[in-house]
């Protein structure tokens, strides 16, 4: 069921919120996907009962939702997929969580994820692998693996993820759902456990385009607790269903290169033909510096990560190993608390920011980031949207890339550019390779999520 169906049934009295919660937990019990780290059954039941006394308000009223475990929830364990925060109980709600609760959503649990959102397979989680709902031998993608698997297997129809280099769009693509990384700043990051602050974005993951836009409407907006937040007060559903004729769409040549899986590319080209038939104007363009995306991401995101994760010292919260000097305590607590991938990224980030490297790498990367952003902005002077495949391939077997430090970044080569520029991008399914979904990415200029949803709703209809 989508949000409109649920709302209609609630309004007609056919179902109550408690029925939706019971159905979700019944599906969880029969699921083997390991998409939850913490369940919130008692509180979900209590809230569902409480909502029975209230008037049915918007489309999110009474709807069960899964929230990625790097978004803090008051009195509900929040681990960020790490042993470091294995017993961390937040004392406040993230702004997005407050907004969901105000809208009448029922949080049924916290989603499994790559540790501190560092990974693209879900395999770096301390709490075990999330399995792909379509084929349990495959990765669900990452880092928002749990949310993608939960929504993909229809335990809930909506969920929240976070995206630093593709962590919403890549798992959405692997699990056959819709995932949006909104414009940086349009959704408050207050209460999101930071990985790379100038990249991190919370976004909706849903089974259909309309629900995605509804959820984004709910969570976006200016927040005095996040000074990078900003709002254009747009209704993201306003253009859904409108004629796409005349839309000007660019395809960066880099997005259709020979490293992309042939079947993925073929399916993408089929969709391009459909868009042309519908009257979209589509042209291939050059976008500067895209080939440096992974280098830039490693330098900037890992630099920020090393700084952000220095707060985990075991003193105020988090895993703590007592004994010895203060330095020994810090080293032992951090070394036991963090997993290998996180440690590796902290070390690389520390290297980048050390001494002369800050100038050689970090300073230069910030300049290239600006140049790349200017290149995107120039494209958006002539085009409404940019499209391409979301990933270079479909979902692959678990364990395939475990020991390769670089390959986990290569997965995100097509999604990272939108994190570097801060522009919005959405992934939605456009077909299959065998039984595995193929994702298409639609990117837009800042705050043009409404135009992205306009095209996405058309693609959803004709795929």
């Amino acid at each position, binding site marked *: 069921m989508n949000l409109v169906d649920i709302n209609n049934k609630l309004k007609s009295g056919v179902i109550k919120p408690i029925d939706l919660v019971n159905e979700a937990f019944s599906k969880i019990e029969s699921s083997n996907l390991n998409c939850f780290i913490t369940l919130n059954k008692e509180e979900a039941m209590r809230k569902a009962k409480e909502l029975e006394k209230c008037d049915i308000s918007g489309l999110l009223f009474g709807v069960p939702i899964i929230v990625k475990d790097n978004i803090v929830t008051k009195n509900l364990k929040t681990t960020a997929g790490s042993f470091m925060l294995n*017993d*961390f*109980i937040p*004392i406040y709600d993230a702004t997005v969580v407050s907004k969901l609760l105000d809208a009448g959503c029922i949080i049924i649990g916290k989603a499994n994820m790559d540790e501190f959102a560092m990974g693209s397979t879900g395999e770096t989680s301390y709490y075990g692998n999330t399995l792909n709902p379509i084929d349990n031998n495959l990765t669900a993608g990452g880092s928002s693996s749990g949310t993608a698997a939960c929504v993909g297997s229809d335990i809930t129809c909506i969920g929240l993820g976070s995206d630093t280099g593709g962590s919403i769009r890549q798992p959405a693509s692997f699990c056959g759902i819709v995932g949006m990384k909104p414009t940086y*700043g349009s959704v408050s990051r207050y209460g999101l456990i930071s990985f790379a602050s100038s*990249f991190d974005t919370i976004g909706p993951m849903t089974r259909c385009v309309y629900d995605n836009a509804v959820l984004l409407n709910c969570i976006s907006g*200016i927040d*005095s607790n996040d*000074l*990078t937040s*900003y709002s254009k007060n747009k209704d993201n559903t306003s253009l859904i269903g409108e004629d796409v004729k005349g839309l000007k769409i660019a395809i960066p040549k880099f997005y259709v290169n020979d490293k992309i899986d042939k079947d993925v590319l073929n399916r993408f080209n089929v969709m391009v033909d459909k868009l042309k038939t519908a009257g979209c104007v589509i042209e291939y363009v050059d976008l500067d*510096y895209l080939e*440096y995306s*992974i*280098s*830039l991401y*490693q*330098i900037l995101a890992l630099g920020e990560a090393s700084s952000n994760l*220095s707060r985990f010292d*075991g*003193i*105020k*919260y*988090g895993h*703590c190993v*007592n004994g*010895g*000097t*203060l*330095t020994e305590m*810090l*080293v*032992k607590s*951090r070394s036991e608390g*963090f997993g290998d991938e996180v*440690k*590796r990224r*902290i*070390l*690389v980030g*520390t*290297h*980048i920011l*050390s001494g002369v490297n800050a100038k*050689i*790498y970090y*300073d*230069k*990367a*910030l*300049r*290239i*980031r*600006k*140049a790349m952003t200017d290149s995107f902005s120039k494209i958006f002077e002539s085009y409404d949207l940019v499209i391409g495949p979301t990933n270079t391939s479909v979902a692959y077997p678990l364990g395939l890339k475990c020991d390769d*430090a*670089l390959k986990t*970044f290569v997965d995100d080569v097509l999604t990272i550019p939108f994190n570097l520029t*801060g522009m919005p991008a959405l992934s939605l399914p456009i077909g299959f390779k065998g039984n595995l979904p193929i994702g298409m990415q639609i990117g837009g200029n*800042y705050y043009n999520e409404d135009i992205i949803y306009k095209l996405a709703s058309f693609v959803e209809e004709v795929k």
Partner: protein
Amino acid sequence: MINNEDVLRIASLANLEVVDIDKMCKQFNDIVLEMDKIKELEIESEIMFSPCFLENQYGEDEILPSINCDDLFNNSKNKYENYIKVVKVVE
């Protein structure tokens, strides 16, 4: 090239222990090799400080209830009365 000694020095800066230094050193070099690609670029652009439009946000200067100390202390392993206890650093 990063060598084992460099890895240990960086680990010390990051307050981390490295168990398999050889493996970490190899992975480190793979990543640095990728990062080094930007060295080939001559770039004149200004620095990008934020990917979004930033606007000052002003609010009323009002007193709000503070965080509850008991709640705050719940997540700390080492407590003594109303304090977080840390290892002695001054003899």
